[in-house]
């Protein structure tokens, strides 16, 4: 059974880590979760991002879900936002592409241009 005491340990560990690296979020991932996104597999895209963050212990990445943004024909759509850089929008995503984006873009800092459908605001 998981208890709130487990969370206290996690918090202490996380606070220690945040002190070391200054506490900022390096990458923000926004997964489009409108009706058409969900129908096209956005939930599995979200799930894979969470698995990768957990497995690779990526402590400076944030993931959120949002509604549709008018790119229905390219769903599932994912925005990657890094401080001081133009927003990158990936389209037609699936779990395999997510794993590649995590390794290439989030870990190694190289945009996976094959999957990009838009950049900037």
């Amino acid at each position, binding site marked *: *059974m998981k208890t709130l005491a487990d969370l*206290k340990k996690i918090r202490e560990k996380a606070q220690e880590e945040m002190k070391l690296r200054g506490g900022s979020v390096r990458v923000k991932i926004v*997964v489009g*979760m409108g009706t058409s996104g969900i129908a096209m597999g956005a939930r599995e895209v979200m799930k894979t991002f969470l698995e990768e963050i957990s497995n690779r*212990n990526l402590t400076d990445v944030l993931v959120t879900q949002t509604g549709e943004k008018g790119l229905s024909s390219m769903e599932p759509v994912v925005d990657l936002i890094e401080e001081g850089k133009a927003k990158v929008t990936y389209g037609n995503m699936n779990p395999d592409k997510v794993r590649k984006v995590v390794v290439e873009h989030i870990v190694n800092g190289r945009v996976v241009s094959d999957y990009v459908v838009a950049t900037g605001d």
Partner: protein
Amino acid sequence: MQDISLHLLDIIENSVRARARNVKIRVIKDVGANLLRIIVEDDGSGMDSETLAMAQNPFYTSKAEREKKVGLGIPLFKQNAELSNGSFMMSSQPGFGTVLTVDFELNHIDRMPLGNLKATLLGAIVGHPEVDFHVILIHCDRGREHSFHFETAAIKEELGDIPLTYPDVIEYIDQSLNEGIQNTNMENV
């Protein structure tokens, strides 16, 4: 949508879009009553009776900022419930919120599977840190009842400024939901 959990995710996203701060999700499997019931209750902006009726029409959408002129989420969920001899009820009060109750006949041949409930709940909880979720799973089988309660407010309070997407937190929520889903026999439903 291939399963009920995907519809559930779609409904939760509606609640979030209606600026809900609290979303209560109940999944009840009652073997004796041959019933699978999903209840989603939010304290979002709510709808007046006209909008409520319109929301069940596929050619209505509240998402006016987009070019899209259809809203299939609710009509499809309703259709899928009715296909399995179930029912779909939505009630709402502007300023107070919306309650949606969807029933399926548990052993109906045309009932879609419950699907990956954990992926729906984990994504919604972690993906909307501003919303407090209360998840209740209940399994009844002729007098025996198992239930699971999960409230994210207590977790967030314990975590302070540590985000829900912190790796160990994802794992914590994932495992908690997993245990709850197993204990209430909500796998392969």
